[in-house]
């Protein structure tokens, strides 16, 4: 064979070998081209599920969804396009568009990222027609929350874009996804968010969809989130917010037999529709900065007040359980409880038994009952021991603890510990040192929710269910089983009768006569929470009807004065509205509606 023939053959074999090695590398060893090919031709369109709806206890809608359109971009698929045109459609500046695209590029070059949120339907229609001019961009359908009535903003909460921390923690979320940030939206995020679906489509080099991939084999439909049924009564909530208009304060109404919250009002509030969609962050900032009204502050769960006279019933219950008083026990009251150095004043004179003491809210009676509880040296050798025992009762009654139910940002309140007083008094203290707590003043701080729950305990005669706002998940007949545990408070049922009698008398003959409702036996107790900063807070608690209670109400109106001035009428109107579905006492209603304490 000729040498030159060999050289030529070798060159050909050499080139072929080089090609085969290169092909082997490209096709078999280097898998990055696979991904590139998929990113080229496959577009995974995430089908965002609609969030679950939220109904009230009577099946009327509290929260529903509305269609919205987001503009997404896949940076790697972008080609040159008319930025001016796109800016005009989106109504943003060129710099802003560039900034957003840069941000998207930083997040991922291959995955779609949000560019413009919640375009209006008309913008969407206009853009859809021109979309072929903007390769790499596409529109994704989303849903936005809407609220038929502007009520219960704090409790319903809101949704917003998921933050980076959550993005890392939970792979369900992608940049631009929505997540419940507060309220029910947050507590029931798992149920509400539903299941994302996806469709895989083939797109060609011009970014045109050319059909489904593998006949839709890999497509998955999205599943709407579960609907929730709230314990709230939308009409009652609305009425409560109306009554509290121009006032600062809170109403919490609970169905005692279940712990279901019927209405929970915190005023001032805001329209939940403000915190929806692209306007959310702007409106949120504005609400944040309203330091005078503080509309975002949920007083019902986060505001701490001295409990006031309503707390006297707790003092009495513990004294009864501890055996230091009986319902027949009387203490003489000469206008105050004298401790030598100073006196807790009382505005009446007499020799009341327990029922009467509650009816007239006698300070002396409860100071002495408290003193005797804490000074019971036959049971407790030191003040520390007896105070700890008392505090345990108080905690069991729901004060100074969190319920950790489905309510957002609930605070614990303050029931000081033994150590607190040991520190303050250098271990040398006695019942008189903390006497003002017996009548709901001094160191104790409670939230409206805790007070309402306490009233529910009284109505139930010794137990409660955690107050909560969701009663059914998925269907109306699938009860929310998270809060079905009955919690006992360690106080015997029999001790409650005198308390209930006292509350009945308070409404019939005592400080709370204004709370009477024709045809309904209402039990109640006024309170006046001392306010060092201004006019006292008006407090009222009520139970109705007396037999088989359906609703307990706690109402607090800041700077409302005596309990009977503002809180009692409001609680009474709420009760009447809930039980009768109408209010006949129009004159009282009118007076409250026009009242302003701001």
């Amino acid at each position, binding site marked *: 064979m000729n040498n030159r*023939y060999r050289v030529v053959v070798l060159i050909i074999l050499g080139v072929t070998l080089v090609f085969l090695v290169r092909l082997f590398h490209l096709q078999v060893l280097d898998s990055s081209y*696979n991904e590139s090919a998929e990113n*080229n031709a496959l577009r995974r369109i995430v089908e965002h599920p609609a969030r679950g709806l939220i109904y009230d206890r009577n099946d009327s809608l509290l929260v529903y969804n509305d269609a919205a359109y987001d503009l997404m971009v896949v940076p790697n698929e972008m080609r040159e396009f008319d930025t001016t045109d796109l800016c005009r459609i989106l109504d943003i500046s060129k710099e802003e568009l560039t900034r957003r695209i840069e941000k998207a590029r930083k997040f991922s070059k291959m995955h779609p990222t949000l560019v413009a949120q919640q375009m209006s339907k008309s913008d969407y229609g206009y853009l859809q027609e021109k979309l072929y001019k903007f390769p790499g961009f596409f529109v994704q359908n989303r849903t936005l929350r809407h609220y038929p009535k502007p009520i219960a903003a704090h409790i319903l909460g809101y949704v917003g874009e998921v933050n980076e921390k959550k993005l890392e923690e939970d792979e369900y979320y992608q940049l631009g996804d929505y997540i419940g940030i507060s309220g029910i939206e947050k507590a029931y995020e798992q149920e509400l968010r539903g299941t994302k679906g996806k469709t895989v489509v083939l797109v060609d080099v011009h970014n045109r969809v050319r059909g489904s991939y593998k006949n839709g084999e890999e497509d998955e439909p999205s599943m709407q989130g579960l609907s929730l049924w709230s314990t709230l009564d939308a009409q009652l909530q609305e009425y409560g917010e109306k009554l509290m208009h121009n006032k600062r304060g809170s109403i919490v109404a609970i169905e005692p037999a279940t712990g279901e919250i019927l209405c929970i009002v915190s005023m001032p509030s805001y329209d939940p529709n403000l915190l929806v969609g692209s306007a959310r962050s702007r409106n949120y900032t504005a609400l944040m900065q309203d330091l005078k009204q503080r509309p975002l502050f949920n007083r019902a769960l986060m505001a701490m007040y001295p409990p006031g006279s309503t707390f006297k019933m707790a003092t009495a219950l513990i004294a009864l359980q501890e055996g230091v008083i009986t319902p027949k026990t009387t203490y003489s009251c000469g206008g105050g409880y004298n401790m030598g150095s100073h006196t807790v004043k009382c505005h009446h004179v007499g020799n009341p038994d327990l029922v009467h003491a509650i009816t007239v809210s006698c300070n002396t009676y409860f100071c002495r009952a408290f003193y005797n509880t804490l000074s019971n040296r036959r049971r407790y050798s030191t003040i520390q021991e007896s105070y700890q025992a008392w505090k345990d009762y108080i905690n069991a009654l729901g004060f100074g603890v969190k319920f950790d139910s489905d309510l957002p940002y609930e605070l614990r309140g303050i029931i000081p510990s033994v150590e607190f007083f040991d520190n303050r008094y250098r271990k040398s203290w006695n019942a008189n040192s903390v006497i003002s707590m017996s009548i709901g003043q001094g160191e104790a701080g409670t939230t409206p929710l805790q007070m309402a729950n306490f009233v529910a305990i009284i109505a139930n005669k010794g137990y409660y269910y955690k107050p909560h706002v969701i009663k059914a998940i998925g269907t109306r007949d699938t009860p929310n089983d998270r809060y079905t545990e009955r919690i006992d408070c360690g106080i015997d049922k029999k001790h409650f009768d005198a308390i209930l009698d006292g509350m009945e008398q308070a409404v019939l003959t005592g400080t709370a006569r204004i709370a009477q409702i024709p045809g309904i036996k209402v039990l109640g107790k006024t309170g006046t929470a001392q306010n060092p900063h201004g006019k006292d807070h008006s407090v009222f608690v009520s139970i109705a009807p007396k037999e088989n209670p359906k609703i307990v109400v706690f109402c607090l109106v800041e700077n409302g004065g005596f309990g009977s001035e503002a809180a009692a009428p409001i609680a009474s109107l709420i009760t009447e509205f809930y039980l009768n579905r109408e209010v006949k006492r129009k004159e009282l209603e009118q007076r409250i509606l026009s009242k302003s304490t701001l």
Partner: protein
Amino acid sequence: MLKEVSFGGSNEFDIRLILYYLALISIGWITIFSTSYNPAAEDFFSLGNAYTRQLIFIGSSFVIAILILLLKGQYYSFLAYPIYLFCLLVMILVLFIGTEISGAHAWIKIGSFSIQPTEFCKFATALALAKFFTEGKTLQEKKNTWLVAFVIVLFPVLIIMLQKDTGSALVFSSFIFLLYRIGLTGWILVTGGAAIALFLITLYWNEVYAIALVTTIFVVFWILNRKNRRKLIRNATIYGLALVFIVVADISYNNVLQPHQKMRIDTLLGKVNDPQGADFNLNQSKIAIGSGGWIGKGYRSGTQTKLNFVPEQHTDFIFCGIGEEWGFAGSLIVCLLLSGLVLRILRLSERQRDPFTKYYGYGIAGVIFFHFFINIGMTIGLLPIIGIPLPLISYGGSSLWAFTIMIFVFIKLDYR
């Protein structure tokens, strides 16, 4: 059957060559069908479909092949120059009456079909060279052998350059295999390789580096050979030529090449990185082939080629379709078939006693190999993008006919 032992060659048509041919044509049509078939569109037999047209080209190629096998083999040697001249004339004619398709003014339009005479010119040039080297006196007696051979190749190249079809013009450099086999010094291959290397260095870095490199080598040889005057002069001459080459390369790159050609070279050299722009085609081509894996995505399941990410996916970039749908297995088979075809032609050429057949064989083997080399090299990103078809596989009547003629004339010549 008549035996013509005196001419050597075979006494039957080379069945292996025919099988290579049939295999490649079938693979070609299947791939064209795969990349251009649109189930939603027009009916199968519409002439608007690339695959239908290719079927017609294949059918007519068979007719041409049979005709060639029936005609007498002696005609080709006899008619070599007339065919060559006829082709040149047609080529010149194209300059005036031709149509422009994708930048090249190289087509004659007949009805709805266009013919590119360039393709046939390769065949004619192979014939002419074979004829030139076999006629009359022996090689040693001829004057200016290499110069004349060079001119025979240069004519069509010049006309093709005027048609602005650089890719096809480059193909004619493949006749270097023939010249080398006949006796052109082996230094021609080495020099060619060195020139390409120097050219790339000049473009990739810049001329200063290239000059520095050449100077360093020159100084080293100067020191080694400082006693030998003759070698010193030779080295100095080579050094001088290298410097001139660098300067010419630099100037011609900057001034002669068209912007898109420069861009293609830059892209290959990695001087631009713009996946959406300049190197879009190269990138997409690599993605299509690279996503094939071992056995590919399956017939008609190639997303990249079907969805037009790869440009010209049934002509110049048809190898992408093969790589994507049949994977490494398919690429391997096509590479082996093509190089097998070339090697088979070379092997048959070597056993010819008639030098005309032998030289002709080397000529067409070079052309086919060059197409294979450039086309696949470009789709897998080893060579700049130069638009020439993959022999027997790419869509296109002219190219298919021309390669059919080349191969079957050789089969006929081999059969004596």
